[in-house]
């Protein structure tokens, strides 16, 4: 019998034809930046200029931070400020930079059975949903959007987990999957604007509540610290961050539109 190790070695040799190309970095990011099409718009500009390839892993913010803590990414680009600051404070990240923002919107069926469109602010809208016990789809996946949703429930003074499985449905999935579920159930949900704008399977769903300052959705970018993981590509990662937060990157972000609507607003200082 052929030893297993030699087979594995043979396969490793066969399987790596991409090795000798351009240098690359791995960016752990959120599904909203990937699914909205932002990366497909801005990365080619950066790659063409620097010949540094950017490999994006799109996951929920919680999972993306986990990847970065394990040293499996060079740069972290997510949207939950408190978690980002904790990441830097624990020494996993070098420094957090403001990058861009947009906002969250409360999505729901056009008929609006809980009558949230008339309410002033997101907390009041959620209170109405809880009182009417109309279906609400929660990400339930420790993503940036999920964390934001939980903070809105706290602001509304409601604990939706008591109704988990009843009108409060935790799907434990990406924004797109949650929107697909909400479209079928004609349920309310919270979405970042980027994913919503690019989302094709809307069914009868529309934006019902927006504009509350609590719904602000800021994105930050952080270089993973070499102190915890010596293999991190500090120089390449820093060049990417410098570009993103510099005039060229900020212009590229501002020029990205979905159906004519600007999806992200640059905010680097």
């Amino acid at each position, binding site marked *: 019998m052929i030893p297993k190790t030699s087979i594995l070695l043979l396969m490793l040799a066969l399987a790596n034809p991409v090795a000798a190309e351009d240098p690359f970095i791995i960016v752990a990011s959120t599904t909203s930046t990937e699914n909205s099409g932002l990366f497909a718009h801005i990365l080619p500009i950066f790659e063409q200029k620097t010949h540094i390839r950017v*490999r994006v892993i799109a996951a929920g913010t919680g999972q993306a931070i986990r990847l970065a803590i394990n040293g*499996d990414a060079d740069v972290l680009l997510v949207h939950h400020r408190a978690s980002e600051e904790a990441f830097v404070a624990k020494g996993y990240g070098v420094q957090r930079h403001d990058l861009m923002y947009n906002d969250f919107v409360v999505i729901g069926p056009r008929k609006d059975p809980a009558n949230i469109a008339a309410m002033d602010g997101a907390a009041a809208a959620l209170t109405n949903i809880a009182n009417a016990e109309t279906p609400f789809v929660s990400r339930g996946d420790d993503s940036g959007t999920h964390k934001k949703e939980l903070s809105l429930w706290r602001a509304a003074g409601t604990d939706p987990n008591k109704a988990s499985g009843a009108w409060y449905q935790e799907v434990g999935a990406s*924004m797109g999957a949650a929107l697909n579920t909400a479209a079928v159930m004609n349920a309310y949900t919270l979405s970042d604007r980027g994913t919503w704008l690019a989302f094709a399977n809307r069914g009868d769903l529309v934006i019902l509540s927006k504009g509350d300052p609590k719904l602000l959705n800021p994105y930050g970018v952080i270089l993973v610290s070499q102190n915890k993981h010596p293999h991190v590509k500090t120089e390449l990662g820093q060049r990417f961050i410098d570009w993103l937060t510099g005039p060229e990157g900020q212009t590229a972000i501002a020029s990205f539109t979905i159906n004519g609507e600007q999806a992200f607003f640059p905010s680097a200082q």
Partner: protein
Amino acid sequence: MSDFSSALWAAFSLVIQLDSDLAEIVFLSLKVSLIAVSGAALIGMPLGAALALFRFRGRASMVVLLNALMGLPPVVVGLAVYLVLSRSGPLGVFGLLFTPTAMIIAQLILVTPIIAALTRQVIDDLWREYEEQFRSLGAGPGQRITALLWDGRFSLATAVLAGFGRASAEVGAVMIVGGNIDHVTRVMTTAIALEVSKGDLALALGLGIILITLSLAINGVSYVINEKARENHG
């Protein structure tokens, strides 16, 4: 029905345009799954044959274990391979995470038990048939394994195809260890998952139709080859 017709249209136009992104994704899917299945066959067939032919303590439990491992959940295998290949894991220094190699390793783990378990069954049946002859010829263990594997090759082709089906259809493991990186580790199944999460159900289903067609083609070709070979050896 409109979703199905637009899915068919999406599949058709992708193929007609010879979409280069699609070609890249199809090629990577085939490459990853074919290498994984070849490796799994090299390991699984001798293993399955040995389990069928040799009597030793704990053999029954090994057979049960192997049969149970056919149902390994891909997402669990993906997670385990992630933990091993992660920079914080035991093999992190090799930097294999988020590469096609990582995907091949995950699929190899998923497919090897399938090929080994099905091989064991095939060889076990053959052995019952030919046991007397082998004993009278005084064939050694190595000779028995090679002779029976060769003799059962037509049935074993089905075991390999079952393994290939499992590898090319699974999404849970390759999503975790490959990361679905555009142009690097994006394969058919992860591309479908991505389109679903964008809400583009027609394109997702269109990609699904292409994946099923490919699988159909591979199974058709191997059926024809198998039949020809059977005739020649009939």
